[in-house]
């Protein structure tokens, strides 16, 4: 019995060492978005889209929610490649998830529908 207690102590000590987890997980967002800004070609666009999809399909952060701006920027990239309907649907998702984005995003959607 005592042995178990001794075993438990280091477990507790180690548990308290865990670094606190961020709110969101971003996959390889920094590199993908840098390449997209810099090259703005088909390859970097596809890489960025893949990254957005990875962020949306799996969240390891503590909030378990898609991070701010992801749906909207994904929508923007889709709009840029002529996918108006899918792009606007993503923009709508941003508003639904983050109502504070409405002022800005609703205007963008309106611009598309003109």
């Amino acid at each position: 019995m005592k042995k178990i207690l001794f075993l438990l102590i280091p477990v507790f000590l180690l548990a308290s060492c865990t670094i606190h987890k961020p709110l969101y997980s971003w996959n390889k967002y920094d590199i993908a978005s840098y390449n997209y800004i810099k090259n703005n070609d088909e390859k970097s666009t596809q890489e960025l889209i893949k990254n957005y999809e990875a962020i949306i399909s799996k969240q390891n952060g503590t909030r378990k929610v898609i991070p701010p701006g992801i749906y909207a920027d994904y929508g923007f990239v889709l709009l840029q490649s002529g996918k108006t309907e899918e792009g606007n649907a993503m923009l709508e998702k941003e508003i639904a998830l983050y109502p504070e984005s409405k002022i800005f995003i609703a205007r963008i959607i309106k611009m598309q529908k003109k």
Partner: protein
Amino acid sequence: MKNTYYLLILTTIIFTSCSTTAPLKKSVAYKGMYDEKPTTILLMPPINRSTNVEAKEYFHSTLIVPLANQGYYVIPPFLSMEILKRESAYDAELFLNSTLSKFGEVFGADIVLFTIIHKWDKSYSMVKVEVEYILKSTKTNEVLYSRRGAINYNTSVSINAGGFGALAAFALTAVNTIGTKHVDVAKICNTYTFKDLPVGKYSPINTLEPDEFAGKKVFTVNLNSQYR
């Protein structure tokens, strides 16, 4: 008489050495942040005063992550950049000292982030960056948060092991291609600096936070890729 002089000089020296600023509590250093409780941030295109032409891009792509992770709503960076470009507002320098209410109206931003890259010098295994971050209110135009850091980033990866370790370290340095390496530098500058930013509305509430100490307003730090 001579002794009095010595005494005077001595006290002056002691007092001078005391004037190095004592750390401030966040509630004092960032009072405006607690008063206004901003939730939504607009990222302005970084202002590049360094000689490195790409520094602007390194920073642009790395600002959203630390700010969102601190609990803020960050206005979608690509979409907002596009609109800023269309509205001829891409040069953030123009707005550094002007009223910001328009950014509140168009983007719904409570605060605007200006990033000024003062220096970006690289040598074989070092990148020396000097960067300033300024968060200004779109309601009052007041600076709510500002820090300026000189960050010396060591790009060589150190692995403490014999023969093979050294070889691995060499290979890693070679693999760290220029572009991605520099994105990493910018990312670490942002993460280090914003560590003391009061948290936004999506962060779990921490009632003790205002009593924590703010980081130095102007700082110098040595970092490497191990920093997270």
